[in-house]
């Protein structure tokens, strides 16, 4: 069986045993969007939809960052990572499998909640499709960068703030492109450039970041 499938199955199985790890970011998403929908006055939400789009993106960013911060921490602690480095020839494929499973466990449930959030924030239904088109690649990039940050801080206890400092600058360009594409679509301006940009970033991240993550996993065992 190849390394991708093995890592995917394992991460899914462990995630399944800890449903709260997926449910907490979902709850966070619902709480933030509902609080904003009741505190911000209706008119400022509907004018241009830009606030609603920005809120949905930022909440997705934060919940993905929270969820991926613990990537590989357990494997580092219990010695599974040792076994992977010692025996596994293809850490690249294994990282791919593990990140894909993390994306399913933490990002997909939140993207699935977006219609609920969009409804609470009175977002025009015409914007929904562009929101989805950008949130899907966006959440993939967020997950990959989040796992990269988590592997960088392996062995550093309580890595929360450090992790945020490391990955937030990487998140910002994707956030701006995503929100930009949605807002341009709302204003009926051309948005193709931003859309292509975000997909290009996602493709590059999927191809190259697992190399970096795999290298960091090896380095983490040197100390």
């Amino acid at each position: 069986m190849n390394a991708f499938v093995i890592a995917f199955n394992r991460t899914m199985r462990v995630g399944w045993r800890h449903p709260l790890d997926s449910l907490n970011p979902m709850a966070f998403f619902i709480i933030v969007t509902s609080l904003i929908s009741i505190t911000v006055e209706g008119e400022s939400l509907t004018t241009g939809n830009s606030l609603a789009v920005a809120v949905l993106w930022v909440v997705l960013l934060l919940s993905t960052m929270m969820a991926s911060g613990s990537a590989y921490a357990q494997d580092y602690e219990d010695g599974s990572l040792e076994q992977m480095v010692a025996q596994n020839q293809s850490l690249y494929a294994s990282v791919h499998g593990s990140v894909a499973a993390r994306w399913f466990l933490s990002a997909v449930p939140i993207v699935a909640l977006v219609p609920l959030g969009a409804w609470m924030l009175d977002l025009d239904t015409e914007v929904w499709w562009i929101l989805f088109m950008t949130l899907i690649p966006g959440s993939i990039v967020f997950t990959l960068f989040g796992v990269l940050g988590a592997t960088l801080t392996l062995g550093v206890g309580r890595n929360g703030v450090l992790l945020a400092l490391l990955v937030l600058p990487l998140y910002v360009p994707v956030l701006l492109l995503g929100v930009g594409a949605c807002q341009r679509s709302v204003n009926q301006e051309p948005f193709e450039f931003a859309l292509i940009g975000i997909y290009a970033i996602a493709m590059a991240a999927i191809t190259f970041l697992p190399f970096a993550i795999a290298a960091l996993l090896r380095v983490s065992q040197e100390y």
Partner: protein
Amino acid sequence: MAQVNSSTLLQVSGLEIEVAERPLLTNFNLNVEPGALIEIKGPNGSGKTTLLRHLAGIRRAHKGSIDFRDHSFAYVGQKTGLNVSLTVYENLRWLTRNADRNTSELELIRALSDLGLKSRRDTLVGALSAGQVRRCGLASLLALDANIWLLDEPLTSLDESAIDWLKGAITSQRATNGAAIVATHATLGLPETVTIDLNVS
């Protein structure tokens, strides 16, 4: 340097290991032949674990080569490599797949029952006692069926019967042309053991 036979399982030559800029080993050579049992000895902090981790390829040496000559190895470290959220069976299956081995379900269960863990097959590793976790780690030795065993302090947390089992397992591993390299400060007391003392070198 010892001569190299075609049957040599592992050949280490000119290995140089540094820990925190301090040389731990210089020009370390080792040939492991079938049937060998090598005990790495030395006081705490002398680098037993570090040497073993280099042999397992977990750490990279500055100089020298470690050549397994296409032989497989199983490494059981002080961390067992078992995930607490997975069952005993799931962990064991993952360890074998991770090492690219297609061990059948029957063989996995045989390995577990050999260590008295058959009834714990579907128990989460997090619910096991320390000794049982160690036993589970040792069961992976049988499941992996590797040519060379690399064991780091295998006697930790083991009761009498598990220690007897381990001695028997190492003996039969040697009898079937395998070899074992054990880092330990308490000797296993098996015949024809080669001792590497890291304090003297």
